[in-house]
């Protein structure tokens, strides 16, 4: 059975659905972040537009869409213009391999984990382009910090993901979920350590507190997107939250069993797990101060990477012993 046209139509429909989810989800996350921060700080957060400010994001999006797009006169226009796409497009692409339920996945690639990890790393290029193209010293510093940070945190991130791959024996996202149907990986101590390492390095990957060094409002004003306004800024903003969703989705799939739950539809379980992780990361964000650049690098290379390496060794030993 081979109907290429129908396949194509299905792909397009799925693509549209992914795009819609990308935007709506990011808006929801922004609202959630505002509400969580308000709760932490004994405030109420947005309350005026819609019930409990739920329509605030629509108002904000309309505002950002209608805003004038200001281009700095001395910016490198081509690079500057291209940068938001380099940040947003890989993020959207990463949604391709996110298993929302046992059937809801655009393409279950057999190298799914690898695909997500590699395509999200392309974002760093966009961030650096934004920093360079803005021709602003603060932005440049932010871009350079981002490049260094994301590249160095990729190492412990992948090493911790490796543990799961070893346990599951597959790189496919669905395959990893299926492997957990017998019992969550997280119950094993070595996977717990890997989960911790993953969460920390994933936080650093998406530039969130305590690793929001590229943005670092109190130091670099706003880092690489200082000069962006209007829709271009919105793309950075949406991509940031979409990235947050991606890392949480990967965490949920790899460590918490993805869509496995007690009842159907299984997508509910997946989203519950993802938003649970996101809420926790938000809680962390509104609690902790920021670490310094060199301390963060030292943390990645001197603490996280050795832990992850030892963890892999232990996992391998355990697997061998188990036969």
């Amino acid at each position, binding site marked *: 059975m081979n109907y290429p046209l129908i396949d194509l139509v299905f792909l397009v429909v799925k693509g549209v659905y992914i795009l819609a989810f990308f935007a709506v989800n990011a808006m929801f996350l922004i609202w959630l972040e505002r509400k969580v921060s308000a709760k932490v700080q004994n405030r109420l957060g947005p309350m005026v537009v819609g019930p409990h400010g739920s329509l605030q994001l629509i108002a904000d999006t309309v505002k950002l869409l209608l805003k004038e797009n200001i281009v700095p006169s001395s910016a490198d226009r081509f690079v500057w213009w291209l940068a938001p796409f380099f940040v947003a497009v890989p993020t959207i692409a990463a949604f391709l391999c996110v298993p929302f339920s046992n059937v809801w996945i655009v393409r279950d690639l057999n190298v799914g984990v690898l695909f997500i990890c590699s395509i999200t790393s392309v974002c760093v290029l966009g961030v650096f382009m934004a920093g360079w193209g803005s021709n602003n010293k603060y932005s440049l510093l932010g871009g350079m910090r981002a490049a260094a940070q994301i590249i160095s945190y990729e190492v412990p991130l992948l090493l911790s993901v490796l543990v799961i791959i070893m346990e599951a024996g597959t790189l496919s996202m669905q395959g990893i979920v299926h492997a957990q149907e017998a019992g969550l990986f997280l119950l094993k101590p070595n996977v717990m350590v890997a989960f911790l390492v993953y969460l920390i390095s994933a936080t650093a990957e998406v530039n969130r507190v305590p690793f929001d060094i590229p943005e670092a409002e109190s130091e670099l004003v706003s880092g690489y997107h200082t000069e962006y306004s209007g829709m271009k800024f919105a793309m950075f903003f949406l991509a940031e939250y979409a990235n947050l969703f991606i890392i949480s989705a990967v965490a949920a799939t790899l460590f918490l069993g993805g869509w496995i739950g007690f009842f159907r539809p299984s997508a509910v379980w997946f989203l519950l797990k993802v938003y649970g992780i996101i809420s926790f990361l938000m809680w962390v964000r509104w*609690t902790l101060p920021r670490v310094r650049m060199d301390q963060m690098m030292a943390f990645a290379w001197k603490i996280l990477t050795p832990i992850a390496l030892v963890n892999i060794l232990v996992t391998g030993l355990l697997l061998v012993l188990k036969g």
Partner: protein
Amino acid sequence: MLSKINDIVAGFISILKGLAVTGKNMLKKPVTIQYPFEKPVMTEKFRGLVDLYPEKCIACSQCVKICPTAALDLTATTNPETKKRFLGAFSYNGELCCFCGLCQEVCPTAAMYLNKCYEVAYYKHGDLTKIDLLKADKYQHLTPPKVKGLKK
């Protein structure tokens, strides 16, 4: 090596402690008020815009003398027969005013007072520079925009 691990664990615990503090606060009730819908009650001594009971004023111009920013201006006329001073005009520049309350303090007949108006916003520069204190509706143009569902 051991001390290093100890440091990491202690650092981890300290972060959990911080999370506990913010987590505890998440359960508390918010302390803010929803401003345009709810309005705070001003205290008894609150010093808002300068106001006047014209009937009490004896035009002694002590307030004009004490005003640190020269925000008040008063013209008095003297009745040539009774030698009594009358209030001619009393203007107040709210943009100069520093809300120090010295005029209220120095007034011998308690004619001058600072009212409870704190929503001092206006559309044109100059709306507050020449306030005639003798008029009753002098601060009408400062009333804030109406909002639906104002809670008292």
